[in-house]
């Protein structure tokens, strides 16, 4: 016993040592550990290569930063509050903060990225914008910045999603965007992404593709994570103001593709005292055949330009996921999250439809905030985690529930 105990202790120590100061960043080949890369047909090579060669210098350019920061402040409404959720904290006997990305213009964190990418597209001399969207939040955020900048915009959306998310379709149209139905495959987010990529292949010179999550070929995952990193940048100084320390004990975020999680984790990747909690959608349950929990059900594979964890058959055909939340209904995850999972730096939980809906209604009742169902998955993980009384937990409230009203109504139970 003594021996095996000390062996275990040794392994744990070594693991800790390995994790310590772990660098979660993309390498020169576009990989996070074993995941990432740029698996694109040659037709897309010039576009992606142009981005790869320019994105860092543009992002680091002082005038770009100034313009980006200015728009985030005056247009998006940043910084978003870091709100101490008193009654929720009482329930869980700990200190819970909500990062209020739901208060961003257009109702979710998605706009942080679209503001960044449209400024970048302008600097690359592009005249037209395309995007994919699932629930419509990224589509609306893209349509919004295109209206702002007077740029032509086409958003691909699965035909099934268009029917499910009618208000967002009309929002995009009001903003002057053409919404094109993706009619191939399962007619949802995956297929909308395929159609957007096909459009880009057919229009390689004048068009920029604004990908909405930390997915796609390198440099998209890194670029989108950098635009979203403003979330954890703000959490750091906001927490310092209220708690006298920059680092919480836990940061919790939901993961579909994983852009809000990447932003909330970004400045904590190498802070070992901060536990990074990613929450996937378990749909009707991970064994039910109706789930979107990629780290539970997926294997390494290639989709939409990167090697990542992917829900697929043994023959390598991509499996259609399921979640009540359209924003988490994606068969892969960003390569950075696949790496967080594989390396052990991130802890992954999954929440079912039912757990998420309950958590959404709970937050509405305790704090007067109706969360997006995506974000409600993050809240649902609080029931599964164990923490000490003084632990500080930051939950990234990535979006507001307005768009999900119909789903809440159908679900009932309030």
């Amino acid at each position, binding site marked *: 016993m003594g021996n095996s105990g000390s062996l275990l202790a040794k392994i744990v120590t070594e693991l800790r040592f390995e994790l310590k100061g772990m660098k979660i960043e993309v390498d020169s*080949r576009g990989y996070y550990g074993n995941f990432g*890369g*740029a*698996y*694109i*047909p*040659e*037709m897309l*090579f*010039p576009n992606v290569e142009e981005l790869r060669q320019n994105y860092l210098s543009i992002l680091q350019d002082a005038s770009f930063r100034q313009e980006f920061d200015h728009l985030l402040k005056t247009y998006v409404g940043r910084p978003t509050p870091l709100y101490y959720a008193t009654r929720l904290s009482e329930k869980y006997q700990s200190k819970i903060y909500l990062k209020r990305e739901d208060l961003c213009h257009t109702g979710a964190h998605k706009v942080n990225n679209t503001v960044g990418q449209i400024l970048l597209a302008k600097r690359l001399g592009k005249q037209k914008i395309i995007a994919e969207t699932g629930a419509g939040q990224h589509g609306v955020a893209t349509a919004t910045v295109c209206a702002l900048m007077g740029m032509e915009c086409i958003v691909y959306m699965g035909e099934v999603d268009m029917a499910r998310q009618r208000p967002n379709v009309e929002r995009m149209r009001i903003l002057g965007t053409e919404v094109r139905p993706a009619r*191939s*495959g399962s007619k949802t987010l*995956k*297929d909308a992404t*395929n159609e957007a*990529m*096909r459009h880009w*292949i*057919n*229009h*390689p*010179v004048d068009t920029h593709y604004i990908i909405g999550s930390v997915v796609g070929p390198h440099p998209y995952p890194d670029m989108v994570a950098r635009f979203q990193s403003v979330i954890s940048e703000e959490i750091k100084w906001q927490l310092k103001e209220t708690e006298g320390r920059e680092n919480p004990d836990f940061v919790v975020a939901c993961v579909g593709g994983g852009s809000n999680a990447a932003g909330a984790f970004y400045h904590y990747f190498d802070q070992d005292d901060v536990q990074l909690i990613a929450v996937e959608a378990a749909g009707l349950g991970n064994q039910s055949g109706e789930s979107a929990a990629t780290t539970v059900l997926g*294997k*390494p*594979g*290639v*989709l*939409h*330009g990167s090697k990542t964890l*992917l829900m*697929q058959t*043994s*023959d*390598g*055909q*991509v499996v259609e996921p399921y979640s009540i939340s359209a924003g988490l209904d994606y068969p892969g995850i960003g390569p950075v999250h696949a790496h967080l999972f594989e390396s052990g730096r991130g802890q992954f939980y999954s929440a079912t439809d039912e757990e998420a809906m309950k958590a959404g209604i709970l937050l509405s009742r305790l704090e007067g905030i109706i969360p997006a169902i995506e974000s409600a998955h993050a809240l649902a993980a609080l029931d599964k985690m164990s923490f000490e009384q003084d632990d500080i937990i930051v939950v990234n409230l990535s979006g507001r529930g307005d768009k999900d009203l119909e789903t809440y109504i159908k679900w009932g139970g309030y």
Partner: protein
Amino acid sequence: MSITMTKNRIEELFEQKKERILSVYFTAGFPAIDDTAHIVEHLAKAGADIVEVGIPYSDPVADGPTIQESNKVALDNGISLQLIFDQLGDIRKSVDIPIILMGYINPVLQYGIEAFCKKCAEIGIDGVILPDLPMQEYLEGYKNVFEAHGLLNIFLITPQTSDARVREIDGNSRGFIYMVSSASTTGAKAGISSSQLAYFERIKAMKLNNPTLIGFGISDKATFDQASAHASGAIIGSAFIQLLSNTKNMEQDIFGFIQSVKGKA
């Protein structure tokens, strides 16, 4: 295991024949699941020079509607990479022309690179076209095992590919280079524009080490003739899939189609 490759059927073909090489693509398991080997045989008999057997994939991003649909039908029919290998197991008893497998990287990854190459060598597959396997990844992770099994990896170039990259691709190619005729997915509108002609001329003037075949938008004798004037030949895909969708007598229609494209009918 020897790394040096013996002569490959693709290389032999291009040594013997310098012009009007016709390569035809079709999707395995389409229109019916058991058609795969028959179509290869009919194509060879009808006079195609190369056959490209498509491995169906759920998310074929480089393909237009016609090939997307054939992929979907084939998958619904129950096709898989393993089944394609089974269907082609005896193909070398009846077919001598080069056979290429074309598809997306993910099904190949799941099969296992080594196992895939081994199976290809066993059957007598000569080359592979995997559009979403980029050159750098190929060189670092795939080239050795491909070459050890006598498999040529065929790269694509497009009108947007820079001269420097065309040279790099040429340097890493064996067999031929797949020249995508325009910035498009497969099955683009037929007809060849002046800007495409300029691109064909640009590539021709580069005097590459490898021959080129022009694909995408080649559908009939007229476009095959045009393409053949600027390259060693051309590749037909979507137009052939459309023929397969509508055929009542497959063998006869394939024969008629190939003969009409080559101009011998």
